[in-house]
């Protein structure tokens, strides 16, 4: 079997990305993600060396060609990425909103002090 240049490039990219992702973050729930990532990277390298696995998978699930299969997988992956990113941004937004609110309220002081502030000119209510 002879390795084409593009295969070499792709394998290097997959390994570098996988290593980078493995090293980042420290939560214990990351363990599952890391296992999955390792498997995924392994499969990526495998499918680069033997592109025909995609054809086999495609035939297994009833899709015409392996390239179509790759496209479908990509669409699903991209959608789930979009959704998880959206949710993560929402959490982040909720967090910095609380922080900003705390700042704003601390800066304004307690509402109780309103009574001691001299009231501005009170005009008689002229009706709506």
């Amino acid at each position, binding site marked *: 079997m002879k390795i084409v240049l593009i295969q070499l490039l792709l394998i290097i990219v997959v390994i570098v990305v996988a290593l980078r992702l493995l090293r980042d973050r420290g939560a214990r729930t990351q363990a599952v993600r890391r296992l999955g990532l390792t498997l995924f990277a392994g499969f990526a390298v495998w499918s680069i060396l033997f592109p025909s696995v995609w054809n086999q998978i495609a035939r297994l699930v009833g899709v015409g060609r392996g390239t179509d299969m790759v496209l479908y997988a990509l669409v699903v992956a991209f959608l789930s990425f979009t959704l998880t990113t959206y949710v993560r941004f929402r959490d982040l937004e909720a967090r910095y*909103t609380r922080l900003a609110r705390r700042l704003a309220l601390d800066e304004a002081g307690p509402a109780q002090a309103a009574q001691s502030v001299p009231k501005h000119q009170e005009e008689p209510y002229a009706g709506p």
Partner: protein
Amino acid sequence: MNDTEGTDDTWVVIPLYNEEEVIGDVITQVRTAFPQVVCVDDGSSDRSAEVAAQAGARVVRHPFNLGQGASLQTGFEYALSDPSMKYVVTFDGDGQHQVADALGMVERLRTGEADVVFGSRFLDERSKPGLAKRMVLRAAVGYTNLTTRTRLTDAHNGLRAIRRPVVEQLDLTQNRMAHASELVAQIGASKASYVEHPVHILYSDYSKAKGQSLWNSINILAELILR
């Protein structure tokens, strides 16, 4: 109704975002009936905050724009820091609400009729939204009723009067427009009693230009579904 003696236990919360043209008049109007007004300036780029302070409102300034829902929640927490507060009124800063309506709503809280009074522009014929706006508002309230165990005629009305114990339970996390439905949902879940009060929405050219476009209803729906 001419004196402000009896309303010291009420805080009027006005979310404020780039309304310098009208906010001064709005606050002056409100303060003829309710002396305690807190404006939550949501990172306005104009002089809204200064104008509001000059008009006699207390101003809480968000360091940057967070959205109207976040502004309301900030206003609630500010009002809660006053131990003598019994009622909170939410009021729009663009001049489309009437002070007389707010007074009537707080009065209904005082009589113990309910814990929350929602303003509704559909209980009488005074307000005149356009056909498209009417349809969108109907759809919004249909969706809200469907998902929140409440029965309302106008869920996206910024004029509300709320009793303190209910305000204490509110925690709005929908920063953008979907907060109106979220507020209704939290009140529905808290089993607080509520009534609707007919209010007059003044669709001035100003409020029309400033108001949310119909496109925003799509954003609201998306925010609610992806909650």
